[in-house]
Structure formats: C-alpha cells, structure tokens
C-alpha cells in the first residue's frame, strides 16, 4: 500500500510532527493512531490546515492530500477566540485550531485594521505579554491549551536588523 506523510500539530506538541500512513487510511484511523501515540484525550478532533470545520472521520487520507504536504491539526477546542490589538484598538475573532498564524495575521491586518497587502506583510503577530512571534506556519491550536480556548496577540511591525554598525563603518 502506498504511504504518504502527514504533518501535524497539536496542543502540547513543541513543533510540527510527521507520520507516515497508508493513503487509504481513514481520518478516524489516523486520529486513533495519533491518540494512541501521544496518549491524547478522546475529546481530540482533527482539522485540515486552515479549514474551519473538523474533518469527516470517514474521509480517506488520500482525499485530504495536498501537493505541498498534507497538514492537519489535533485539538480539543473546536474554536478558539482570538483578540488582536493594533494601535490601541482590539478586535475579536474566532478561528479553528488549524488556522495558521499567516492566515490570521493577513485576515486581521487587512480586513480588521485595513492595512494594505504590502503593509500587512511587514507586520507580525506577537503573543500578548511576551516577545514570542510564532512562525507563519504555526497552527493557532499549538499555542492554546484546552479548556482555555482563547489567546491574545499584538500586531507589531517586523523589525529591521540594525545596530552596532560602527563596526562595519
């Protein structure tokens, strides 16, 4: 049977993990494999990356494959409340745990704070009260632990690397 790589993120996992499964594996069977591997709660459900609804358990892995890597997210939260602050204004949103930081940043910056595409690209989400700026491919759920299905960010400019130029004239 032909195998494929599934890249997955979840609450409690430090980074992206990868597992090889047969393409004919059902989503239900994939979830069972992951739950057993990581000893997750049975409340966990699977989402495809940047898709709002949980995956249908009857689907086959080959039916959710993408050419740029099949990416899923496992989480107990079905939705996550997101608050983003920019220039003193805070806007509330709701996303699936599988929403990428890149998608959220772009959506909030352009639709919420009316930045241009180019200006939005020069900003980044930073977890409120920290200096942590999750990578664009990070799934929202990787930053949130059930039952606290919420998180807050600041939308901040990307920094230009500068300083100590006296050493190079």
């Amino acid at each position, binding site marked *: 049977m032909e195998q494929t*790589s599934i*890249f*997955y993120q979840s609450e409690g996992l*430090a*980074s*992206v*993990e*990868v597992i090889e499964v047969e393409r004919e594996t059902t989503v239900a069977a994939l979830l069972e494999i992951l739950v057993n591997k990581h000893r997750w709660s049975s409340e966990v459900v699977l989402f495809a990356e940047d898709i709002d609804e949980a995956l249908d358990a009857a689907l086959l892995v080959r039916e959710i494959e993408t050419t*740029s*890597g099949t*990416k899923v997210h496992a989480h107990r939260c079905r939705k996550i409340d997101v608050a983003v602050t920019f220039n003193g204004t805070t806007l509330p949103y709701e996303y699936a745990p599988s929403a990428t930081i890149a998608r959220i940043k772009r959506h909030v910056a352009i639709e919420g704070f009316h930045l241009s595409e*180019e200006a939005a*690209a*020069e900003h980044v989400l*930073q977890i409120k009260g920290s*200096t*942590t*700026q999750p*990578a*664009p*491919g990070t799934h929202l759920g990787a930053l949130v632990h059930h039952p606290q299905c919420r998180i807050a960010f600041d939308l901040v400019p*990307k*920094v*230009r*690397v*500068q*300083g*100590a130029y006296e*050493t*190079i*004239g």
Partner: protein
Amino acid sequence: MAPDERALLGDLEKGLFRLGVAEQNWRLERVQWPKVHIALRARDCRWFSLRFDCTNYPVWAPTACLWDFERDACLVVELWPKSRGGRVAAVFNPGWKDGSALYLPCDRETMPGHDAWLTTMPALVWRPADGIVQYLEIVHELLTSHDYAQPAVPTP
C-alpha cells in the same frame, strides 16, 4: 559521528524541516561536515544557496553565507538578493564581514558585539531548541517579502 553532526542530522529529519522541503521553501543540497548547504526559494522562485558552518551545533548558532553551489565558492555580490529599501538589504550586506555571514542575530559570527539585540529583537536571537529551522524561516521570510528584489544580473 560527533554529537553536533548527529544533532544537525536529527533536526533535518524532524517534521518542521521536512515540511519546509514539502512546501518547497528550502531543500538540502549537501552535508560536508561541518559545512551544510541548504537552498532557499525566493519570491520569484529563484533558489539561493546558503553554506552553513554548524560547528558545535546546536549549542553554538550556525553561521551562513550565500554560496554558489555550481562554482563551490562564495556567491558574487551581483547575484545576491536585492532590496527595495527595506529589511532585506540589512541582512544581505556584502560589507558585513566581507559577505561571509548574514547580518542576523541568529548568526554565530554576527551576534557578538550586539548584546542590545537580546532585548531589541529577541525573536531573532538563536534558539538551540528550534535549531536550524529558525535560521531558515527568518531567511525565507525575507526572500519572500515585498522588500525582496531579484539580483542585479540574471543567474547565468
């Protein structure tokens, strides 16, 4: 195999590096320890090779320079990524250490003397737990940013 080489090869097997390969953000070209060649794809689909020195990885940050994989030599400045006046020029700066290191807080050769970066740009300071993917993500973000412009002369 020395611990640093084993650690680097282990990180290349992890999901985050493999995902970047699957998304064609980067690709491994060659490991010739302690040198590691990885190419990154820019906004215009052009690939730029970096030659990393990963001595004592991941305790020490790597250091990297632009590399001409065909000539097996430093990439000539005319073929370096260009900037539209923003963040790219600061990092791809041929005047910094004669082009032998990128001007980034996560670069081993660049960080010394820049202690202020620990507070002004902590997100870009080397994190051993994240490993080489941290460096790759920072460079890939620059190469796919609106500030990136193609090199002054076309690739031969």
